[in-house]
C-alpha cells in the first residue's frame, strides 16, 4: 500500500480540520440566530395574543347585547389599555 506523502497528508488533515471548524462555527452561529428568532417570535406571539384577547373581549361584549333589553352599556366594553 502506497503511503501518502507527508505534505499531501498535511493538506488533507488541514482541510478536514478547517471543514469541521467551519461547520462548528456556523452551527453555533445558526443556533444563536435561531434562539434570537424564537425570542422575537415569542414576543410577537404574545403581542398577537394580547390583541386577539382584546378583540375577543370586545366581541364577547357585543355578543352579550340583548335585543329585547337593549343592554348597550354592558355590551360596549372599553379597554383603556389599548392605546389609540
Amino acid at each position, binding site marked *: 500500500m502506497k503511503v501518502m*506523502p507527508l505534505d499531501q497528508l498535511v493538506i488533507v488533515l488541514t482541510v478536514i480540520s478547517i471543514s469541521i471548524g467551519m461547520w462548528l462555527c456556523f452551527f453555533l452561529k445558526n443556533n444563536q440566530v435561531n434562539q434570537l428568532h424564537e425570542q422575537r417570535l415569542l414576543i410577537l406571539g404574545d403581542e398577537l395574543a394580547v390583541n386577539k384577547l382584546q378583540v375577543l373581549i370586545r*366581541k364577547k361584549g*357585543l355578543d352579550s347585547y340583548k335585543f329585547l333589553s337593549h343592554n348597550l352599556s354592558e355590551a*360596549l366594553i372599553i379597554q383603556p389599555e389599548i392605546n*389609540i
Partner: protein
Amino acid sequence: MKRNNILFGIFFTFIASYAYSQQTVKNIDSLLIVLNESPADTSKVTLFRKIAAHYNVVHLDSAKGFAEEGIVLAKKLNYTDGQWENLNVLGNYYERKTDYENALINYDAAMELIEAANSIKGIAVVKNNIATIHIRKGEYQKAIPLLFEALKAEEILKNENGIAQAYNNIGIVYYYMQDFDKTTDYLTKALLIQEGLGNFDGLINGYNNVGAIHIHQEKYKEAIKDYEKALSISTQIDDKINQAIELSNIGICWTKLRDFEKAEKFYNRSLALRDVIEDTNGKANSLVNMGELFIEQGEYTKAESYLKGGLDLANQYDLKKIKETAFAALSELYEGKGDLKRSNSYLKNFIQLKDSILNEDNARIIAEVETKYESEKKENEILRQRAELVEKDLEVRQKNTLIYGAFGLAILLGLLGYLVYNQQKIKNNQVKKEGELKSALVKIETQNKLQEQRLRISRDLHDNIGSQLTFIISSIDNLKYGFKDMGDKLSGKLSGISDFTSQTIYELRDTIWAMNKNNITFEDLQARISNFIDTAKIASEKTRFNFDIDSNINVAYLFTSVEGMNIYRIIQEAVNNALKYSEASEIIVKISDGENSFIISINDNGKGFDKEKIKDGNGILNMEKRGREIGANVEINSLVSNGTTVRIEIPLKDS
C-alpha cells in the same frame, strides 16, 4: 623497398586555439590606434592579445612584442585571464616558429595560472595547444589525454567550435596511430559541427583532414576537391599557413595521379609560401614531399638533396613524423640507387622511429584514456538522467501537492459557500416568518385600535345622546305628571313623543351595536329569535308558538349585523302585532331555504284584517322600512278570520 605510402607526409591541420584560428582582424590599423590611445587597463591587455593573434597569422615576427607587452601589463594589473591568454598567444607564436620548447614553456606558464584560477575556458584552450605540440613531435600518448581533457572542458562550456576542434585533433592522432575507423569517426564529427557553425577556420581544418582521409582511401580526385575548398577559404582569410598545407596536399594528390608536373608546381608554391612565413615544420614537410616526387620520377640526385634538407630540419626541431617519412623515403631512394647498405640503415631508422611512435604501450595508453573518457561521459549521463528523474519525480509530487491543495481549497470554498447559503436561507425564512407575524400583528393592532376607537365613540354617543333622549322622556313624564289636567289629546301627544323618543333610544342602541358588530351568524340570530319566542311564550301563556327552521339551511351563513338586527326586529314586530291584535291561538315562525334566499314567515291563525280598510300602522311601516334597508321583500297577507302571514324574503349574498 616499397614503403607504406599511407604516411606520405600528408599534412594534417591541427587546431590550436587562438592561433591558427579566426583571430585576424579586419581593420588592424584602427586597432593599433585604439591601442595607443587606450589607458593601461584590462581592455588594453585584451587588445594586445588580439593584435598578437592577428600577427601570428599574417606577420609572425610582429606578434611576439604585442603578446609580451600584454603579459607584462596583465601581470601589473593582476589580471590573470589576460596573462594566460597572452601567454597562450605567445606559445602559438613559438609553435608557428617551430620552437616547440619555448612554446611549451609559455603554455605551461599559462596552465599554472589557469589551474590556480580554475578556469575551464583556459583548460580547453591551452591543453589543446599543448597537445598539438606533442602531436607534431609524435608524442601521441602525451597528446591524447590532453585532448580528451580539452574536449571535456569544451563540453562543460558547451562550446561547439571547441568541441569540433578537439574531435579534429583526436581524429588526427588516431590517423597517426593508424586507427582509420576512429580517424574517420572523429573527423566526420568535427566537420559536421563546423559546417553547422559556418566557421571558416574549422571548415578549413575539416576539409583538409577529410581530404587526408580521401587520400588514404586513394580517392585522389575527391581529395583535391576537398583541398581546393579549404584553399579557397584560407585564401579568403589570408591564412598563409593553411594555404601552404593545402597546396602541399594537392601536390601529393597529383603525385599519386602521376601528374608530376602539376605536383611539382603545387609543391613549389607551398614551399615558397612556407619560406615567406618561416614555417620550418611545413618547410621540412614540403622538402620531403619534393624528394618523394623526384623518387617517383627516378631523379634520385634531386630527390636526395630535398630529402636530406627535410631531414636536417626535422632533426633540428625533433619532428619525429617528418623524420620517419624522410627515413622511409631515403631507404627507398638508396634501394633505387642500389646502395642497399644505406637503404637498410635508413630502413632500420625508420622502423625504430615508427615503433617508438606506434608501440603497443602508446596504443594501450591512448585506448585507456579514451575508454576512461567515454566511461566518465556515460557516468555523467547516467547521473544527469538520474537527476532528471528525481527532478521529474519532484515536479510530479509538487504537481500532485498543488492539485491536492487546489482540490482542498475548492472543497473548503464549496463548504463555506454552502454554509453561508444555508445560514442565509435560515435567516431569510426567519425574516419572512417574522415579517408575516409582524404584518399580522400590525393588521390586528390597527383593526383593534379602529374597533376600539369606534366603540369608544359609540359609547360616548350612547352616553351623551342616549342620556339626552332619556332626559327628554323623563321631562315629558314630568310634564304629564305635573299637568294632570291636560286634555287627552295633549296627553296622547306627549305619550306619543315619549314613546317615539323611547323608540329612538332603542334604535340608537341597535344602531350603535350594529355599527360595532360586523356580522352575526344565522345560528346566533336563530338563538336570539328563539329567546324572544320563549319570552313571548312566557308573556302569553294561552298562545302556542312554533319556531321551525328548515334543515337545509346553512347555519354558518353570515348576516351583517344590520341585516340580523332588522330581521329580528321584523319578526319581533310581527309576533308582537299577532299577540296584540290577532287573538291567535297559534303563532308559527318558520325560516326556510328559498332559491338563493331565506324565506321567513310569521303566520298566525288569528282574526286577520282587511288590508284595504286598515291603514298601515307604524308597525307595518317599520317592517317594510326595515325590509327595504336590507334589500328584503316584506309581504303582509291577511284575510279576515283567516289569520295573517308576514313573509320576508331575504336574498342570499354571494359567498
